[in-house]
Each structure stands twice: as structure tokens, then as C-alpha cells.
């Protein structure tokens, strides 16, 4: 068990290192460095341009040798310093992220968990009932084949913009007239604004889990241990329970693999609904050439995904007795 977790941890540390290095390297790789891009928007005279350029290069530390820049980058990172945002100017990037991150978490965590459990349940049910399977299978495939932006637009049109009705607000995290407070109108406003983005993420992920579980259960029900149990005269409920528990393991591995896809989906969904989470913020950072914010959000998302991956690993150890005893490294 310890070996399994340590191995995983090493990979996560390497991932963070690589991600941080990409984060540092990218602005230095592209032609026309960020400083000249920033200055090109300032309409400066040629003489002042050079002076300002040198000043900015010095201020951002671009004139020092690359290895020194790299070391300074890591030093700042360990101090939790991600730079200053341009989009929300004097604020440091970390506190800008802190303003937005709760919305993303409130969206992602329920969507991931509910889609996972509901999808697994429905998939397992579809595997043993042909009538249900005939609808679950095509619907599941269509849902996984749906592009996030389209489902988001469709739901917004039907349920918010009046395609069917005006049941939900169309954009934002809460109504404009309200001040954040822990009273009922504000919480209600939060919930109604939250529902459609949540539903978008839920539906797409749900289809994938349902299909995955259905296929796995059918596979398990044809394996030797199932036939053996049946030959012993075990009740079919017991057989299905064992099949379900065995099928949970690949689904759990799948959960770790799907995290990245769902996070990408959340970015698109937040943008469609102008929902003030990290996905919305990262696009604002791109649009405003706010490189510190862009880099900061990227690193922050990576850390979040790594933590989530580690949680899945721990659950895997708890669920799979083989990793606990150390028979196989999984």
C-alpha cells in the first residue's frame, strides 16, 4: 500500500514540476515576448518605447540569465507569490483566484460526484434490463458525444431564455441587485444561478459513466466467478453485487482519468453562463493579456487536479483489498 501511494506521489510531484516549468517556459518561447505585446497596446513614441521597454524588461526580470529567472520563479512559487493581476490591477493573483475558486468548486464537486453515482447506478440497471438498455445506451452515447458549449447553449435557450420558459437566470453567479450575505434571497439566487451550469456538466459526465458501467457489468456477468456462483445456486442479487463491486474498480480509475475532461468542460460551461468561476476568469485573463493571472490559474488548476487524483488513489486503496495487502501494485 505504501509503495503504491509513494509511486503515485512521485508522479504527482513530477507532474507539478513539469506543469510549473511549462508555465514558466511558454511566455519565453513565443515570438514577441509579453513585454513587447503589452507595449504594443500603449501607442508609445519610438524614443519613449525603448526606454519603457528596458524599464519593463528590468521590472519583470527578463534581462537576467534564464537560469536565474527560473530559480526566482520557483522561489516566488514557494512563497505563494504568483505576481500581480492586470485584470484586477493592484490585487495579487492569489487573492483574485480566491475570489473565484469557490464558485468553481461548488459547480465541479457536486457535478462530478452526482454524475458518477447516478451514472453507475443507471448503467448497472441497464446491464440487466434489456428494455432500459435500449434507451440508456443510445442516450448515453449521444450525451458523451455532445460538445459542452452546445448543451450549455441549448439548456440556456430552453430553460432560461424562454424556449420553454424563464425558469432560471441566464448568466452570472447571483443576481446583480444583491449583496453577498447569508440570507435566504441571496442563497436562493446562488442556487438558481448554479443549477444550469451544474446540469450541463452533470449530463455529459452522466452519459459516459452509464455506458462504462453497463459495459463493465455485462463483462463481469460473463466471467468465471459469476458462472461459479450461479452454479452454486447463489441468488442473482448476490451475483450482481459482486459484479458491481468488481466493476467499480475500473470506473474509479476512469474517474481519475476523466477529471481533466470535466475541468475543461467546466471552463466552457462557466464561460457560456458567465458564471464567475476559474474557467470564466482564465478566459478574462487571456482576453486581457493578463499573463500572471493566466499562469497562476493554470498552476492552481493543476494543483487542484493533483489533489483530486490523490483522493481517488486513497479511495482506490480503501476499496481494492489487493493494493492494501500489497499483492499487486495495480
Amino acid at each position: 500500500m505504501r509503495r503504491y501511494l509513494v509511486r503515485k506521489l512521485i508522479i504527482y510531484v513530477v507532474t507539478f514540476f513539469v506543469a510549473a516549468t511549462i508555465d514558466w517556459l511558454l511566455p519565453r518561447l513565443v515570438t514577441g515576448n509579453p513585454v513587447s505585446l503589452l507595449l504594443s497596446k500603449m501607442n508609445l513614441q519610438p524614443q519613449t518605447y525603448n526606454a519603457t521597454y528596458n524599464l519593463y524588461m528590468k521590472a519583470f526580470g527578463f534581462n537576467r540569465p534564464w537560469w536565474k529567472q527560473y530559480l526566482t520563479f520557483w522561489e516566488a512559487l514557494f512563497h505563494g507569490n504568483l505576481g500581480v493581476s492586470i485584470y484586477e490591477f493592484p490585487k495579487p493573483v492569489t487573492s483574485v483566484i480566491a475570489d473565484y475558486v469557490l464558485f468553481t468548486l461548488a459547480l465541479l464537486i457536486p457535478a462530478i460526484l452526482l454524475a458518477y453515482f447516478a451514472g453507475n447506478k443507471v448503467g448497472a440497471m441497464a446491464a440487466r434490463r434489456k428494455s432500459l438498455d435500449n434507451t440508456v445506451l443510445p442516450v448515453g452515447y449521444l450525451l458523451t458525444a455532445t460538445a459542452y458549449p452546445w448543451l450549455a447553449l441549448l439548456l440556456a435557450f430552453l430553460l432560461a431564455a424562454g424556449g420553454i420558459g424563464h425558469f432560471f437566470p441566464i448568466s452570472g453567479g447571483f443576481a446583480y441587485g444583491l449583496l453577498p450575505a447569508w440570507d435566504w434571497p441571496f442563497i436562493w439566487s446562488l442556487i438558481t444561478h448554479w443549477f444550469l451550469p451544474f446540469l450541463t456538466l452533470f449530463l455529459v459526465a452522466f452519459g459516459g459513466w452509464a455506458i462504462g458501467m453497463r459495459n463493465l457489468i455485462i463483462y463481469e456477468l460473463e466471467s468465471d466467478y459469476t458462472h461459479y456462483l450461479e452454479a452454486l445456486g447463489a441468488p442473482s442479487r448476490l451475483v450482481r453485487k459482486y459484479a458491481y463491486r468488481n466493476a467499480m474498480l475500473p470506473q474509479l480509475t476512469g474517474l481519475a482519468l476523466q477529471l481533466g475532461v470535466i475541468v475543461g468542460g467546466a471552463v466552457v460551461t462557466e464561460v457560456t453562463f458567465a458564471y464567475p468561476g476559474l474557467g470564466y476568469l482564465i478566459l478574462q485573463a487571456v482576453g486581457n493579456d493578463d499573463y500572471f493571472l493566466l499562469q497562476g490559474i493554470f498552476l492552481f488548476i493543476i494543483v487542484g487536479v493533483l489533489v483530486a487524483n490523490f483522493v481517488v488513489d486513497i479511495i482506490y486503496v480503501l476499496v481494492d483489498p489487493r493494493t492494501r495487502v500489497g499483492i499487486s501494485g495495480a
Partner: protein
Amino acid sequence: MTVLGTDEAAAGTGEPVAVVSEVMTKRRRFEFLYFAVRNKKLIIGLSVVVLFVLMALFGPLFVQHSMLAYGPPFRPPSASYWFGTNYFGQDVFSEFVYGLRESLFVGLIGGCGATVIGMTFGFLAGYKGGMVDELLNVLCNVLLTIPGLVLLILIAGFLHHTSAIIEGTLIACTTWTWAMRAIRAQTFSLVSRDFVGLARLSGQKSRSIIIREIAPNMSSYLFLVFILLFGGAILVAASFDFLGLGPTNGMSLGIMMEQASDWSALPLHLWWWFVPPGAAITCIVGGLYFANVGLDEVFNPKLREL
């Protein structure tokens, strides 16, 4: 979403391909065809995909209004404007046809590129083993953990100008990971077989062993991998374009949805502006997934329903 079945049986039937007689291959090909035309999922999925490919290829012949011509705005679908007109009075059908072309093109580049990268790394890791395998595995695990779309946004944030080819290549570079894992596992199971050992003994080079002995034995599997990567690339490209990071001069299904969203298609109820592009993506990718399941049943005797 990985929808590949466990394809052990298909990859591992194990006759050395080099020795298989002409008659055998011919009979097997007819056998595949026999099961292929009888597989409903494959036929339905494939016909939907082919329909949209034909529309992308020959659609421009039926376009009545240029994409850049500005007619009456906000028109619902009619005989003159098949898919209606948008906020600016442009013909949505012509946007759709050219957007479909671009989206399929980007998907094809992304799918082919990812398949090639996944195959190269997968074969290398599975065949060489040892240090090469370890290194490629770490690379794969790292990329697998980093959310692909977020990495693409980061890159696009610094690039400022993208073309369809750059977009497809970037997508290929971020989506090959699970394919490499799958191909590596399949290669592992083939490497220990006698015919590979024989090829080694006869002094063939690694490259020709991989190309002539290993790859043909999992060709059906590789095809399935390509189909899934193609569909996945179309989906990623749609999201990428929708965020406004796609090709700066051009039209694609994702860009159509972006413009519809930006120019208040929702409050104005211009549903004909954003429904066709998204529906086309769902149909194409759904069709590809269906065809994939059907093909899996055709190639894998274990899954056939007789």
C-alpha cells in the same frame, strides 16, 4: 470516454501474419464484411458520419448566398435561407457548410496526429521496455493529469494567432495519452509471442518488426483507436473554438456557436443559429462512437451476436 472493449481476442488470435496464406486473408476479409453489413450499430453510425462528410464536401455547391453577403437579419429557416439568417443577415446554411469542413478538417488532423503519436510512443514503450518504457510512461502520466483544454488555453493565451493546422496539431499533442497506454498494453502481449521472437532471430530490425509483425496484428484495434481520437478531437476543437481561441480567419462549428452566444442569439431566440452546428457535432461524434462499438463487435468474435 474510452469505449474500447477488451480486444484481447482480436489482437491475440496469434497466427503469424507473414505466414497466413492468401486464401485465409481473403476469407477473413469476406468474413468481416459479412458481419459488418449485418451490424446495425456500425451501419447507422457510419451512414450518419458519411452523410455529414458528403455535406462538407458537396455542400458548397448548394449554397445560394455567400457567407459574406449580408441579407435581411433574424430570418427563420425558409426556402431561400435553409437555416435562416443570423444577427448580421448572413446565411446560416453557408456558414454551417464551411464550418463543417473546417471542423472535420481540424478533427482529422487532431485524430491522425494523436494516433501517430500514440502509436509511435505505444510501440516504442511496449517493444523496448525498460528505461524507454519508464520515461514514456512518466510523460504519459504527466500529460494525462494536466487538463488538456486548460493547457490549450494557456498555450493559446500566448500564441495570439492560430490556424486550423496549428489547432489540430495542438489538439493531437494533448490527446494521444490514453491511446499510447492502450497500444502499449497490446504491444506487451504481442512481443512475447513466438512469431516476434522468430523475426528477431532472423535478424530483422526493431522498426521493421514493429511495422511488419506487430502493427498488422492489431490493425483493427488501431483503427478503433483512430475513430475515438477523431471524435474526441472534434469535441475538443468545438470547445476551443467556442472560447474564441480558434482560427482567427475562418468559420467552424465552434466559432458559429461562439458568435451566436456573443451576439445574443439566446434572448433573440435565433435558435437556428446555434442548434445546427452543435447538433452536427453530436451526430458526427455519436455516429463515430456507434460505429466504433459496431466495429468492435465485427472484429472481435467474442462480442458477435449471431
